[in-house]
């Protein structure tokens, strides 16, 4: 009996402990910067898109929601001809972000993606591409890799050795 009175008193004291509800459209809950929300494709600090269409994200995705096709520009730089993510399948696990070698694909703390028609949930590259570097500013894959693209020849990066002529006998 005493425990019942004690329970009643303690529940009554909840009058003064304030509500924990977040009144959603008027107040929004706090989402941390590393929160795994909407997927974006980011760009270099130079303004070119980072994605090299290596298909690693499509392979890593546990539900197969990424579809892309690689193609090259006239200087030999690879880029995706189309890049499609089906957000009705995406589970926002972040495996694609971990697999990407160039920090192109990233997950952002944006969760407001509601649509009225299911086909509108399939995002194309024009919906995914953003104009900034996303979460990793200052990283340019081609500054540390050895490929030759427009504006950079072989062996011209900082820690890169020049190419060796394998047919010459000189040291």
């Amino acid at each position: 009996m005493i425990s019942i009175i004690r329970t009643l008193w303690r529940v009554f004291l909840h009058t003064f402990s304030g509500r924990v509800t977040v009144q959603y459209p008027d107040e929004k809950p706090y989402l941390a910067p590393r929160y795994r929300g909407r997927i974006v494709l980011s760009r270099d600090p130079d303004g070119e898109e980072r994605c090299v269409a290596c298909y690693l994200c499509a392979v890593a995705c546990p539900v197969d929601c990424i579809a892309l096709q690689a193609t090259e520009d006239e200087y030999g730089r690879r880029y995706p001809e189309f890049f499609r993510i089906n957000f009705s399948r995406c589970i926002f696990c972040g495996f694609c972000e971990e697999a990407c070698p160039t920090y192109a694909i990233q997950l952002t703390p944006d969760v407001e993606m509601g649509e009225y028609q299911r086909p509108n949930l399939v995002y194309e590259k024009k919906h995914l591409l953003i104009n900034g570097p996303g979460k990793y500013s200052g990283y340019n894959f081609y500054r540390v890799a050895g490929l030759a693209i427009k504006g950079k020849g072989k062996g011209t990066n900082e820690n890169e050795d020049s190419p060796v002529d394998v047919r010459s006998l000189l040291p």
Partner: protein
Amino acid sequence: MSEIARSLVTIVVQLGVLLTMASLLIWVERRLLALWQDRYGPNRVGPFGLLQVVADMVKIFFKEDWVPPFADKGVFILAPAIVFVTVLASFAVIPIAPGIGVTDLNVGLLFFLAMSSMGTYSVVLAGWASDNKYSLLGGLRASAQMLSYEVFMGLSLMGVVVQAGSFSLRDIVEAQRNLWFCVPQFVGFIIFFIAGIAETHRLPFDLPEAESELIAGFHSEYSGMKFGLFFVGEYLGIALISALTASLFFGGWLGPFLPPLAWFLIKMFFFIGIFVLLRAALPRLRYDQLMSFGWKVMLPLSLLNLVVTGGIVLMRTQR
């Protein structure tokens, strides 16, 4: 002639106030429950969510009012009306304020006890008429619960009657001018309140009608307005027990500064708040725990209360 007109006006006004209050109690209960569960209740529809009641009523009216083809039609439709009618009839004898009140029967308390016994019929008829094993079991459990708790509801009130010397509710309120009956009749107050909770089958005694138990019990075949009648009847029952506790044990409309009607309403809403707090705080009693608590704890206590009260009053009058 003006007597009849005055009575008719009182009756109509009281009916209107009661029905409005029963609907507002839905809003009060949801907001209070939410307050004690650290969340907001309905607060989107209308100011403070008050229009939620209107939305609920529109929803209930638009639901399909279906009578099962295998059910006993007349009894099926009659059952929700019985509890509604008996509770509204019981409100006729409650003294609200010195000039306000529909009537003052000199056996008012017996009338209330008789009406609440009739309320048991609605539950058992609803369970029977649904022609559904689960409804029948739920109805049987509910009626057994209500029957057993009525026994000592009446006995606990006898202590009040012995002290006040009359069955009329107005005389009982008048007899509390010096000291409210909750002090000498504390045990009786507790027993009556617990019995009242079991009569209206509220938590912690709502096993017969809980949604997750026995497929919602005796009203599982009801939908639409009939279900609404059960629901509103339950809220009116809460209001009735609160009003009775306030009148019988806490002095009704007696109090220092405010007008009597204000005191009555304050006390009544305080007890309604206690009903909602019980719902928010306590887990449900299992059926055998419920029945053994009633017969093994409450009944001896109420008999003891009656014997002691009778003995003390007899000693006082002998002197």
